[in-house]
């Protein structure tokens, strides 16, 4: 790590002011630090100042309200999300996703906000000496290089995958994210928070340089809902997803009243598969319906040299989730 100065944040206003007064990358935010410190250690980022968000009051904790739903502060740790009784019971997809993240030590300090805003794990991006497109270079090295862990959907021109497990799960539940900037706060669908490299190759979300994520809101759990987070990995832990599926179903017996299918580990952003959702909605789920949903989920996939297996894998995970809903 290069040297930096450290500020314990005292208010959101102070944070947005400090961010507004600096150039991009000069001042960075840190909460759990489990991602950022890795970037600093690799000299991928060399900020002059880090703002410690952990000292901000009122940004940690989980609130449950029958009418407004679930509110999770951005500083809530992944471990607290994974073990929260209401989340486990009514929002299983989130608890399962949280429990699948990294390791106990990471879950104990990693935060919701950090998990949503973490940077890609791409091995070209994480190598200081490789000046890839994402870091202002000319090409994405995954295109002609080793691409086992890269994107099959939405990649062009940067084939990273978004590493978050919580994002697909929360998007599948229709979550919103509350953002505060110098002009005040705004709320948007978490689905719209993430961007693809075609829009901006350097960033994974729409957060402006002087904005911060303060909380995530999840609508009240609907009755007859079943939800799952299926994550395929090479290694039990710690390992990022080769592919994952966050799936939320409203079921009427074996018939799917509505489905929400969001893929992780296969695209530069959490990837909502409207195609798979359409293939399931209103259908009585059986083997062939679930297979069709899987096939539809990956019909636009464009694998690179080494990751065609992800197409099959994703397809199978979607089918499996659908069958689980019906069983």
């Amino acid at each position, binding site marked *: *790590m*290069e*040297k930096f100065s450290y500020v314990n944040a005292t208010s959101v206003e102070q944070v947005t002011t400090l961010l507004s007064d600096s150039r991009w990358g000069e001042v960075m935010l840190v909460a759990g630090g489990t991602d950022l410190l890795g970037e600093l250690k690799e*000299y991928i980022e060399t900020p002059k100042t880090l703002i410690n968000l952990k000292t901000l009051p009122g940004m940690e904790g989980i609130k449950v309200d029958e009418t407004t739903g679930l509110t999770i502060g951005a500083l809530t740790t992944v471990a607290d999300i994974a073990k929260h009784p209401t989340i486990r019971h009514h929002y299983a997809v989130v608890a399962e996703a949280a429990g699948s993240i990294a390791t106990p030590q990471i879950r104990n300090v990693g935060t919701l906000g950090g998990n949503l805003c973490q940077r890609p*794990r791409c*091995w*070209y991006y994480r*190598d*200081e*000496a*490789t000046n890839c497109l994402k870091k202002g270079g000319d090409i994405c*090295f995954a295109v*002609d*290089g*080793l691409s*086992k*862990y890269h994107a099959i959907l939405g990649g062009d021109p940067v084939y990273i995958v978004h590493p978050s497990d919580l994002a697909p799960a929360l998007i599948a539940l229709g979550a919103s994210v509350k953002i505060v900037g110098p002009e005040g706060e705004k709320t948007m669908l978490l689905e719209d928070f993430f961007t693809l490299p075609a829009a901006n190759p350097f960033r994974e979300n729409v957060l402006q340089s002087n904005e911060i994520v303060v909380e995530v809101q999840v609508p009240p759990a609907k009755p007859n809902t079943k939800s799952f987070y299926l994550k*395929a*990995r*090479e*290694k*039990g*832990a*710690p*390992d990022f997803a*080769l592919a994952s599926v966050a799936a939320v179903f409203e079921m009427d017996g074996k018939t799917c009243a509505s489905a929400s299918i969001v893929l992780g580990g296969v695209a530069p952003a959490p990837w909502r598969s409207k195609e798979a959702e359409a293939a399931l909605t209103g259908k009585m789920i059986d083997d062939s319906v679930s297979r069709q949903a899987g096939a539809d989920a990956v019909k636009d996939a464009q694998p690179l040299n*080494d*990751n*065609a*297996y*992800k197409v*099959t*894998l994703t397809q*199978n*995970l979607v*089918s*499996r989730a659908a069958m689980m809903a019906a069983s």
Partner: protein
Amino acid sequence: MASWGEASESRLIGKRIPRLSGKDKVTGKAKYTFDINRPGLLYGRILRSEVARANVVDLDLSEAEAMPGVKAVLPLVEVGRQIRYQGQEIAAVAAETDDIAKDAIRRIRVDLEELPFVVTEEDAMAENAPQIRDDWAGNQSEPNVREEGDINAGFEQAAVEVEATYHTPVQTHVCLETHGHVAEWEDDENLTVWASTQGVFGVRNDLAGHFNLPANQVRVITEHMGGGFGSKFGPGVEGRTAANLARATGRPVKLMLTRKAEHLVAGNRPSMTQHVRAGATSDGRIIAYDMKGYGTGGISSGAGFQAPYVYHVPNRRTERRNVAVNVGNQRAMRAPGHPQGAFAMDSLMDELAEKLGMNPLEFRRINDPSEVRQAQYTLGAQEIGWHRRNSVPGSGTAVKKRGIGVGSGQWGGGGGDGTQARVTINADGTVEAVTGTQDIGTGVRTAIAIIVAEELGLNPTDVMVKVGDSGPGLPSGGSGGSQTTASVAPVIKTAAAAAKQKLFERVAPQLEASVEDLRVGNRTIYVVSDRTKTIKWELATGQLGMESISEGGHWDRELRQGGVAGTQFAEVEVDTETGAIRLIKIVAVQDCGLAINRLTTESQINGGVIMGLGQALLEERFMDPQTGRMLNANLEDYKVPGTFEIPEIKSIVFDTHRKVTGVGEPPCIPTLGAIANAVYNAIGVRIRELPITPDKILTALAEKKA
């Protein structure tokens, strides 16, 4: 003739005894090289090349030298020389803190003229590849060809043939304590080095040579060390650099490799690619074997592998080559050449058996000349439930399919002469055993205590064992080749016996008995023919006064033996939708000769199995042909087994004879073939490239379907 006696006579040898270093290791008190804090300690760091091949045009250390807190900057490459792999040393820094040292190496300016490089075997062997070694045309060594029998006649007798290509990628050692040293000069001519090494005396001799000092003026200490697996013998560039930085600054210097450098320059297991054609007779004998293969050990040679392996093949031809790439060099890694060869051979055996319509275990029984393994097959098959395997591989419609497989291995490990040791009995009754070996985690310290305690009628905790220090001047060899215990144990035993003899001679007159009539047990010396005559241990030793008994020993060949056989059985479950492999159970039947300590021996077998399963399912070094750099020089994308990968492991210490042999390496060998064959048995598709990862399973299943 010296012997270890019968099992029934052993009070300690062969029992399960917790290791002596346990308490220090679980409380954090054990000091590894990495933990050595010396007064005035400086921290060393090395700047390494990020490019695979380049000419060094200019090197400017001045900015780093001018930094506050920087005490020395040394060049490690000359301008005009060539960089030949990523990670090659450019310059080193010693500074007041590790962070300053890190800052300083980033302020060294090196001007590199990049050259075309090759980092994969395929690129190195391509027609227009840049020539990266002057002595190897096409970047390949001259083939090493061996022939035995008549291969053509062999194939004529064959009823079935298999032709296949098997591949294992480069694996790295991943020593958790990286290579490193703390070097401290007492004066211009006396150097002490704490080294994370498998060879205390090897490091001493290398450094003494480097600094042109008498060997006894260099002292090397390795009280505890965090894993070597074959990669930690000499001091290496980093060790000599630590000593040079210490000399330049007049202060102690600690220089540990980074995790990244550990992957890049601290050794690796070479890759293997072999194309083999083999035939078997209708009655199940492998009759012909024709193999062409290559591997890479980096820019150097050393990419050998065993082929054929274990099983007897009368007619064979083998051709091996080394391929040079611009990557850091190989070093010995746990059973060098064996796991690669075993994976290919055991896969081939199953493929031949299937063509013959024969049970793979029966096929092995016919072709395996080892009587020990024949017995192990029976035991292992029983333990795993061999009868439960799929009679038709891949049959059934379940999403998750189970299969069972078998693999085999062999090793030498009989030790060697050259160890010196002393066993000392002091007047206060304490006993010391000193030798220059090192405990790299195998438990030799405890084995020494057990042997001495057994001989002197004491408990292992009564024996103070000093190893891992060249200071006493009692040399022992490096801990490699599974040779340590078989090299050390006979010397310790004979030394302890000699010390006991001396003590008996001292007390025999007062007990009015002959020395031959004396025994010791339960801290008491007694007369065999008249049990009423006894003397307590402390009373006996108390008579020694200032004259401690201190005896050396010798390497009695009769106390050790080389050559061990092993076999393993694996049961796996393959999720055919995700390609995930779950290991259910591994049975490891390992010939161990005389296990001095059954507990630590079981630990070693477990450890071998787990390293083997890592190689089978997870581990692979990824080199990027575009940048020439290793893409996974970390522990995130270089994946070693964690808790979830561990199945039920049944480690069976298979007693064969009462002579000491080595068992550190052999248990990592049969695991690969056993797992690969189990996967085939589960899904009916053969994966011929390690590691067997979900992408390969899914791709193979899709190809089968198509």
